């Protein structure tokens, strides 16, 4: 009786303790994994010829989904800006809001979240399947460093290509806002461009691309990390994929806040 009451009180605490230890261990393991990635970077002969392929797969093939999201975001931003201003603020400020919001925030973050799903899930599922079918062990036995062969080209491709994808998304969002302003808001092109240029600073673009690079690094690195840790067959691959997407999305939001605090 006393024991069951005792267990009832301590069980939640035990769960919190175990979760905290598991989380700390996961951070430690990710740190160790990141170290192995850095050590594998000089092995260019292994990853060099795979980089272009990964840049195409992770970057170029992600452009359509990024453009789709950005176009609709630009449309909505323009309409919401006009709705919010309600005549109190000159309508050319629509250009200001579309440009600033797309470049500083929604371009990189929405694209990052979409790619956390597309790229992070793809990497975790692919490497997870390779892990459970012993293909990663096979690479080892053939004298390949699996980290140099599988992880380095993906992480570098993510860091290189995410800024390009985000740059296209930013441009598409502004284009969407411009077309909407012309057709639905009675705003002329010179007025919209006036708004765009009013508070534009070249640093806005740098800020956007720095964020995109960091998102590319974490999304691909987490996809690889969870893929490499996969155990237990198809169910394990599903679990690794979910974890990669959730962790990637969370890290994008954390980094988003970090860069705002650090650079703005």
């Amino acid at each position: 009786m006393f024991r069951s009451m005792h267990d009832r009180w301590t069980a939640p605490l035990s769960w919190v303790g175990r979760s905290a230890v598991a989380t700390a261990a996961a951070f430690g393991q990710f740190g160790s994994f990141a170290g192995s990635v850095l050590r594998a970077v000089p092995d260019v002969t292994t990853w060099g010829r795979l980089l272009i392929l990964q840049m195409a797969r992770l970057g170029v093939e992600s452009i359509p989904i990024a453009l789709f999201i950005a176009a609709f975001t630009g449309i909505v931003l323009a309409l919401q800006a006009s709705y919010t201003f309600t005549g109190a603020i000159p309508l050319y400020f629509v250009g200001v809001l579309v440009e600033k919001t797309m470049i500083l925030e929604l371009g990189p973050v929405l694209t990052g979240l979409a790619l956390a799903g597309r790229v992070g899930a793809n990497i975790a599922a692919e490497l997870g399947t390779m892990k459970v079918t012993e293909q990663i062990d096979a690479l080892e036995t053939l004298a390949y460093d699996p980290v140099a062969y599988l992880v380095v080209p993906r992480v570098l491709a993510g860091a290189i290509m995410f800024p390009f994808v985000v740059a296209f998304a930013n441009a598409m969002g502004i284009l969407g806002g411009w077309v909407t302003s012309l057709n639905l808001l009675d705003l002329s092109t010179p007025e919209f461009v006036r708004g765009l240029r009013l508070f534009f600073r070249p640093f806005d673009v740098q800020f956007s691309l720095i964020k995109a690079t960091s998102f590319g690094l974490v999304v691909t690195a987490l996809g690889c990390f969870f893929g490499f840790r996969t155990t237990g067959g198809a169910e394990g691959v599903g679990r690794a994929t979910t974890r990669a997407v959730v962790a990637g999305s969370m890290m994008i939001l954390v980094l988003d806040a970090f860069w705002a605090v650090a650079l703005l």
Partner: protein
Amino acid sequence: MSIQLQEVRKAFGEKVVLRGVSLEVKEGETVVIIGGSGSGKSVLLKTIVGLLTPDSGRVLVDGQDVAALRRQELYELRRRVGYVFQFAALFDSMTVADNVAMGLRRVPGMSQADIEERVRESLRLVDLEGYGERYPAELSGGQRKRAGLARAIATRPKYVLYDEPTTGLDPVTTALIDRLILKLRDELGVTSVVITHDLASAYRVGDRIAMLHDGVIRFEGSPADLRQTEDPVVRAFVEGRPELLQEVV
């Protein structure tokens, strides 16, 4: 030179898989390791190529302690060891020819023409000529195993480790794989360690047979010795008679 396992112990968390395994594989011989499911046979094989590190004890290949090797030294050693995986572990995204060529691309001084020639030769050895441009998904189970074998022997390794090479195959394909193992021993002079459940296969290819039971080598001897052993645990496994285990209890 040879492969030597000295008092190898390995545990995964609470579960102790190897409790002090000692075994020597001499140059040019084929040693078959038999044992029940989960007895640690694959773990043992993985310690030989450094895919797993023993908790204690030593694994020596050509006199080198595998666990003590630096990464580059380990890769040098792995070029001398071919590994045939239980389910072939072929790279899905590559053709059979590319799979076989993977190890060859790590061999210094091999030109593209040399690699292509060696790939053809290796596929010919396992009777898979003309399958080079197919993808693993387009092969049958037996063909996959043979493609895995071709990949393992492409670099002409001194040692080949087979992890259940005939599991799940029909008797004809099993006999074909056994003949290939013998052919590789006779034609390429490879030293082999074969893990199997299949006793017919073990008798066919083994110069010596060892049985892993309860984390230790319970029996070691020639195929003839295995047939004559009085050890009830070994007989229970060999004859498929679990009731003999009651004699042990």
